């Protein structure tokens, strides 16, 4: 437990009377990429602020590489990308990054090389005021790469980025993880985190309701797999009757089945012979999992 780069134990946070986080446990090991998912207001940003020591913990404990939040050593080993960050418009990208490099102490880092890494080498000496939202986000990402952090906390890092920049972002996250940084990515956008994180934790109204690999979450949720059967000629009605599925258009039937019934159904469909022209299978997506865990329709 304590050897994890980031260790969160039974953490609760009150805002006045409101309980924003309740009894949250989470660990991120060195080199691990964990997605922290949840709707707006679920408490993701609050959890990150607690880790950074920007606001006090009501109860529980957080350790960053063994150090308390907000301590000099914890701040030295943490990198942070705030939600929708912006910088002083009068500074240039180079000046802003140089300031961060000097503040982080020791490890100077090569500022132009870092800006080049995030694709800002052309805008090096332009005022940040002239940057687009995506460019500011990338400048924020560049400062995350300063000085080999032990823990990187990225709050909604994909907001404002176009799809190509998202590719770059995940390449950078992979690079961080490869050098041994524990990466925590808070997001309400699901599509990007799917294949690119080692683990997914889901927050619902301040409570952690799931924390596992995507495959394990799918299995535990037991969400149905969707089968779409295309009928030959006008056999659709007949197929719908025998399989118990529903017709969705002239020639197709949709059928939901539990994970353990999947092979059984497929065999049944195969036995129907010529009447079936095609079968399409859609396993539960993160989207569905998320809806399942985050909306709270756990029966």
């Amino acid at each position: 437990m304590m050897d994890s780069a980031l260790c969160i134990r039974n953490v609760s946070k009150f805002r006045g009377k409101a309980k924003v986080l309740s009894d949250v446990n989470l660990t991120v090991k060195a080199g691990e990429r964990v997605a922290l998912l949840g709707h707006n207001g679920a408490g993701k940003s609050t959890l990150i602020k607690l880790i950074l020591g920007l606001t006090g913990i009501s109860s529980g404990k957080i350790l960053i590489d063994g150090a308390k939040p907000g301590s000099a050593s914890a701040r030295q080993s943490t990198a942070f990308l705030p939600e929708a960050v912006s910088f002083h418009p009068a500074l240039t990208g180079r000046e802003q990054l140089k300031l961060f490099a000097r503040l982080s102490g020791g490890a100077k880092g090569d500022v132009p090389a870092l800006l080049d890494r995030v694709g800002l080498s052309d805008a090096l000496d332009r005022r940040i005021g002239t940057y687009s939202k995506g460019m500011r986000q990338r400048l924020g990402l560049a400062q995350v790469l300063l000085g080999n952090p032990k823990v990187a906390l990225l709050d909604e890092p994909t907001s404002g980025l176009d799809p190509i920049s998202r590719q770059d972002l995940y390449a950078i996250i992979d690079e961080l993880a490869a050098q041994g940084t524990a990466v925590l990515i808070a997001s309400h956008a699901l599509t990007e985190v799917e294949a690119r994180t080692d683990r997914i934790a889901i927050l619902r109204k301040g409570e952690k309701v799931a924390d596992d690999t995507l495959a394990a979450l799918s299995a535990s949720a037991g969400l149905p797999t969707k089968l779409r059967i295309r009928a030959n000629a006008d056999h659709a009605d007949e197929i719908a009757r025998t399989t118990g599925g529903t017709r969705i258009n002239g020639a197709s039937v949709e059928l939901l089945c539990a994970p353990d019934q999947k092979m059984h159904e497929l065999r049944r469909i195969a036995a129907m012979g010529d009447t079936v022209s095609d079968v399409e299978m859609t396993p539960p997506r993160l989207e569905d999992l998320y809806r399942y865990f985050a909306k709270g329709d756990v029966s």
Partner: protein
Amino acid sequence: MTFRSFAIAQAEMHILRRNRWLFMATLIMVLFALALTFAGSAPTGTLGVDMLTISVASMTTLSVYLAPLLALMMSFDSISGENDRGSLALLLSYPAGRGEILFGKFMAHLAALSFAMVVGFGTAGALAAYYGGAGSESLIALGRLIATSVLLGAVFLVLGYMVSSLAGSATAAAGASAALWLVFVVLYDLGLLGAVVIDKGGAFTQNIFPWVMVANPADAFRVWNIAASDTVALTSGMTGAASALPVWAAPASLLLWPVLGFVMARAAFQRVEP
């Protein structure tokens, strides 16, 4: 203070230069100082003092209003503006402490303010000396005016940081700063004046009033400049209360305020949750 404070200070200097703030503040100082020097040049002969003395007296009156104003304009959004942008959380996630951040900003702002004061008052002083002559005493008075103006500016810089930390947003901080200026520079004196009138030269006027007055940094600035120079006192026609105080009272007040203000600003900044 530390290497990190200097890093912050350097970035703040870039900002002040780039957004023309340094240029505008210096220009304002030069224009006002010149206008006062030459508008006030008429009665020179009658009082038997050199032109620089008159110029310093008028510039003292000017600086009471202008130094706090320029300082507050620089400092009011230094915390709240950063918080509005969302960059304060990031800044605070770095190893620099809050005191170091505040001190870094202070160094840059004070340097800019000093530059504007030296250039503004210096230009006016040099011209006054050139046209109307200057004695060693009036040159000392000019030096004192510049130094005390910087100190007065320092007081309002740190008070500006305090307001900036306590206000929820840069807009609120701007309003609070305007109120602060009005209270210290205008209303405080009006209140004291009213109290003196009601007291009709009683114990309050004799013993308490001078101390209450000098507790206000703006008044301490005035008293220091006036009491230290008989000729400035003569031309500005303001003695009275100042003479009832020991000589160290005004300097002590003006030197203590920046320190006290910084401590208060630091405490207010501590409460800010980005």
